């Protein structure tokens, strides 16, 4: 995954990262480099530590080993489906404005972010608990975008979203990445999406890790090894 153009283009460098909870080793000696504009998909079975890897990379949990983000990196993070209390009187706009104040971002950046994710101001002025799964995920993406990020970490952004909504969100992320030259780290269980959009794939499971191009990692044998069971997925050739 290292850039052919040299170290200047490396956005993230991970060296021998290990995580253990008590006697359980979640992942061990994970090393990879990510170049600017790349799109890395993280795949693997439940419990392999994909979300924990993301949480380690944003500094939320302590890990062994080292990782370095390049100077000037601004991370936009969309966490896995959040369990929000449905009755809090916090609107989408309250939430977006909170980024404006906390991170020093302008109101127009918020409007742009809402526009980019196709969420109306009317939907954003409703309490977040009353938004649909798809609207809430869009709001989270809008929040991440309002900070003008150059790296996006998306943890199953389409979980809980209906099928047309999933398609729209995937297209949106892909379009944003192309338009803005973002570097993308994406956790996804949808291997056809990974195959279509990712420039490289990181596979995580309790007993192995591997990194490579989708065509070399997403083979039936390798997937069988990662998931411990045969995995079928449909490749969209377009």
């Amino acid at each position, binding site marked *: 995954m290292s850039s052919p153009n040299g170290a200047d283009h490396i956005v993230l460098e991970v060296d021998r990262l290990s995580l253990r909870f008590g006697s359980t080793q979640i992942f061990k000696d994970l090393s990879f480099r990510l170049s600017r504009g790349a799109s890395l998909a993280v795949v693997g079975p439940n419990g392999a530590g994909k979300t924990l890897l993301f949480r380690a990379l944003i500094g939320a949990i302590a890990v062994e080993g080292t990782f370095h983000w390049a100077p000037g990196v601004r991370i936009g993070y969309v966490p896995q489906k959040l369990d929000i209390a*449905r009755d*809090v*009187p916090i609107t989408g706009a309250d939430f977006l404005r909170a980024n*404006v104040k906390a991170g020093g971002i302008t109101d127009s950046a918020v409007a742009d972010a809402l526009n980019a994710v196709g969420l109306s101001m009317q939907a954003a*002025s409703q309490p977040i608990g009353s938004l649909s799964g798809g609207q809430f995920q869009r709001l989270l993406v809008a929040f991440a975008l309002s900070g003008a990020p150059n790296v996006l970490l998306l943890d199953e952004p389409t979980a809980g979203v209906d099928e047309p909504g999933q398609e729209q969100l995937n297209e949106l992320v892909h379009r944003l990445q192309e338009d803005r030259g973002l570097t993308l780290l994406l956790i996804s269980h949808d291997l056809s999406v990974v195959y279509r959009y990712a420039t490289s794939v990181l596979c995580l499971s309790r007993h192995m890790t591997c990194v490579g191009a989708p065509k070399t990692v997403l083979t039936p044998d390798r997937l069988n090894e990662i998931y411990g069971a045969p995995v079928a997925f449909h490749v969209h050739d377009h």
Partner: protein
Amino acid sequence: MTIEALLLSAVMAMAAGLIGCFAVMRRMALAADALSHVALPGIGVALALHVHPVFGAAAMLFFGGLLVWAIEDRSHLATETIIGVIFSAALAIGSMITSGDDLLEALFGGTTGAPSPTEIVFGLLAAAAVTLFVLRRKHALVVTLVSPDIARTIGIDVRRLDLLYLEMFALTVALGLRYLGVLLMGSLIIIPAATAKRLSRNLNQMLWTAATIAMAVTLLGSTLAMWLHQPTGPIIVTIAAVGFFLSFLRAEQYSV
């Protein structure tokens, strides 16, 4: 009741309403209530040492805030249980070292007399600190409420914010002990905010509704208590609770 006492109770109530909004949204109503109990042994020790009780209470509450913060960080422990046990024990020990009328007043509040200059200065400073904290940090508190991980990515020090919040909460309890006592002060923080949560559609509405309700019930309760020659705390909390139940007459505002 003097003008100073009325003014002090009003600013105390405003701080309680504001800080309570986030306690209710963070679902820490029970922990918050238990935290206020820790003030009792502080009052007992202060009285024994002939120090103003508010300082003994504030010192113990500061320690209590630190304790809740340290326990919350170890999420594998049953936080609510430990908080319940520790703070009930504090209440028990406090009851043993405080006695007679002092104990009754410490538990339920009741002073309607003129506050001392020390109390006025402490009260105004503490209320200003809590109000400013909520208004200045409400955005960071909202993001942390939705997702502490997102908060970290935009540069919020979540651990520090949590500690600050708990200490501001503890300060609010110390501020209101004079009127409501250690058993009831938690209720003035929680009930107006819970009522405001039912009546509001957005954050600012909730903050100002909670502050207004808290001030209204405190002023009404204090006046009634003076008129009936009763301790202030029980009357204020009863009025607040009636307001909460009345709010059920109106459909919740978040449902669309």
